[in-house]
C-alpha cells in the first residue's frame, strides 16, 4: 500500500520540529529515516499514524487522506512499534501481542484472532516466553514483543521507531530480516527510524536523511550514504567501504566545530 506524505509541518508549542516534509513510500519497500537526535524522525513517524496531528500538510494512504479515516480503520492499515515500553500494569506476552487484534475485533476474540497471535509468536520465536509477564523480559525480548504486536495487526504499512535499539547483534539481524521478508513476501511496506547507518544500509531500499526537521537527502541507499552527506548532517568524518556491495560506514572523528 502506498503512503504519500505531502508538505507536512509540525511544531511542539512554538518550536518547529518538522518543516515541509514530502516523501513517498512505495509498496514492498523498506524506508529508513536517519538523522541526528532531535532531527524529527520519531515525530514524523507519529504524524504518519496520527498519534500527532501535523499543523500543515496531508498524508495519503493509497490516495486517501488519513485524517479523514476513522481511527480504528487507520489502525487496520498502519502498525506502530514504539521505541520502548514500560508497563505500569503489565500483561503477559500473549495478551500484549493480542492487543494487535483490537482494530479487527468488536469485543469477542475469534479463533482466527488467536491463530494469528500464535502464528506471530512462532514467527518471532517467542513461544517459550508467551505466558511470562512483559516486565519480566529483557530489553531485547520486550522489543521483539512490541514488533510482534504490530505484526499481529496485519498492517499494510509498518512504522517502527528504533526497532533495534535494545537488541543484541543476533536479534538485530533476526528482527530486521523478519521485517524485510514480510515486506517482500506480503507486499507491505515499512518505515523505520534508525540510528545505526549500517543496519539502515543493509536492510532498507531507500533512505531519508533528516536534519533539523527538514529532508536533507532522500533516495536509494547507495546515493545517500556517502561521506559528504554524513559530514553535513551528523558533523562526523567517515570513510565508506563498499566491499559487501552496500555502503558500510566507518566513523572516523567528529568534525571540529567552526571548521566549516
Amino acid at each position: 500500500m502506498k503512503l504519500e506524505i505531502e508538505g507536512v509541518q509540525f511544531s511542539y508549542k512554538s518550536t518547529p520540529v518538522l518543516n515541509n516534509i514530502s516523501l513517498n513510500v512505495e509498496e514492498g519497500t523498506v524506508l529508513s529515516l536517519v538523522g541526528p537526535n532531535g532531527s524529527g524522525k520519531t515525530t514524523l513517524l507519529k504524524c504518519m499514524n496520527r498519534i500527532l496531528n501535523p499543523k500543515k500538510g496531508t498524508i495519503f494512504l493509497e490516495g486517501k487522506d488519513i485524517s479523514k479515516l476513522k481511527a480504528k480503520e487507520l489502525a487496520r492499515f498502519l502498525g506502530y512499534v514504539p521505541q520502548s515500553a514500560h508497563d505500569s500494569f503489565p500483561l503477559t506476552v500473549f495478551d500484549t501481542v493480542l492487543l494487535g487484534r483490537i482494530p479487527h475485533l468488536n469485543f469477542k476474540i475469534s479463533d482466527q484472532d488467536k491463530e494469528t497471535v500464535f502464528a506471530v509468536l512462532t514467527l518471532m520465536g517467542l513461544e517459550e516466553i508467551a505466558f511470562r509477564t512483559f516486565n519480566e523480559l529483557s530489553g531485547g525480548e520486550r522489543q521483539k514483543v512490541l514488533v510482534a504486536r504490530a505484526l499481529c495487526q496485519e498492517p499494510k504499512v509498518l512504522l517502527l521507531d528504533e526497532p533495534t535499539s535494545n537488541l543484541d547483534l543476533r536479534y538485530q539481524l533476526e528482527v530486521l530480516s523478519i521485517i524485510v521478508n514480510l515486506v517482500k513476501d506480503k507486499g507491505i511496506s515499512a518505515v523505520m527510524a534508525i540510528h545505526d547507518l549500517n543496519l539502515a544500509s543493509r536492510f532498507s531500499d531507500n533512505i531519508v536523511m533528516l536534519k533539523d526537521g527538514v529532508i536533507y537527502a532522500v533516495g536509494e541507499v547507495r546515493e545517500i550514504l556517502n561521506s559528504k552527506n554524513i559530514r553535513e548532517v551528523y558533523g562526523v568524518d567517515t570513510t565508506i567501504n563498499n566491499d559487501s556491495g552496500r555502503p558500510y560506514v566507518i566513523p572516523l572523528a567528529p568534525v571540529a566545530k567552526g571548521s566549516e
Partner: protein
Amino acid sequence: MIQKLKAAEMRETYSRATARKVTFIVTGVVVLVGITLLATSLGTADLSVKSVFNAILAKFLPFIESENLAETVVWHLRLPRVIMGVIAGIGLAISGTAMQGVLRNPLVSPFTLGISSAAAFGASIAIMFGVGFTASGTYLIILNAFIFGLACTFLVYGISWIRGVTPETMILAGIALMYLFSALTATLQFISNEQQLQAIVDWTFGSLTRAGWNGVFLVSIILVIALPFLIRYAWAMNAMASGGDEVAKSLGINTSLVRIVSSLLAVLITAAIISFTGVIGFVCLVGPHIARLIIGGDHRFLIPYSGIVGGILVVAADTIGRTAFSPAIIPVGIVISYLGVPLFIYLILTRRKEYFQ
C-alpha cells in the same frame, strides 16, 4: 519438529491459563454468595441459619413457612445491609479498577479525583445548615454528598480539559481539589457545635447502618447501566494500562474519550455508593490490586473479578464489624482497613517485584 512441539506447548498453556481464570471467577462468585448468606445469618437477633434461609425463600416461594420475627429481621435489617455491602464492594472495586486502568496509575481511585472529600463537604453542609438540593429529609444529606462529589469531578475535568486530558493533569488537579474540600470540611467542623460535629464524623466513617432498600435499588440501577460500558472498554483499558496512550492510539483507540467516559462512570458509581454509605475508600484501591495479583491484568477478567473481590471484602469487613464486639457496631470503613491493609502488605511482600516496577 521442535518448532511444532513448542507451538503445541504454547497452545496448551494458553488453554490452561484461560481455564484457570474462569475457575477463579466461578470460585469467586461461589464464595461471594456463600459469604452473603453467612452474613445474613449472623447478627444480634439469635436466628438459626435454617430460619434465615426459610425467611429469605418464603418471599419467593409461598409454600415455605417461616417465623414472622425472622422475616422481619432478615428482610428489614439484615438483607438490605448485606446486599448494600455486596453492591458497594462491587461498585467501588470496579470503579477503582477502571480508574487505575485509564489513568495508568496503581495509586489512584475515584477518591484521587477528590470525590470523597467533596462528598463529605456536601454532607457536612446538609448536616450543619440543613440546606441543599432537596427540601428536607434523609435524602438531603445523600443528594448533597452525591452532587458535591460529581461537581468536584467536573472541576477536575475542567482543569484537565485546558491542559489536556492526561493522567498527570487529572491526578494533580484531583489531589489539589481533594485538599481544598478537606479544608472546607475542616472549616465547617471547626465552627460546628458538638452534635453537628458528631454527625459529620459519623458520616465520614463509612457505614452500612444507614442502608435500606431504596439505596440498594438506586445504586443497583446505576451499576446495571454503567458496568456494561466499563466492560466494553476492557480492550481499550488493556491497551492504555499496559502500553500507554501512544500505543492505544496506534491501535485506533480514542484515549481521551475512553478516559473521560470511564472515569465519569467510575465517579458516578462511587458518588452514588458513598452518598449512602459514607466514605468506604480503601476497597477502591486495594480491591483491584488483590484481583490483579490473583487473576492478572486482562481487564476482560479483571473488571468482573475485582468486583467479586470488592464485594467479598466489604461484606466480610461489615460482618466482622457488627459481630466481633456485638452489640457494638464498628463502621465498615474502619474494619475494612484493618482487614485490607495486612492483606495488601502481605501481597506487596510476596508478589514478584516486576509488578511494582
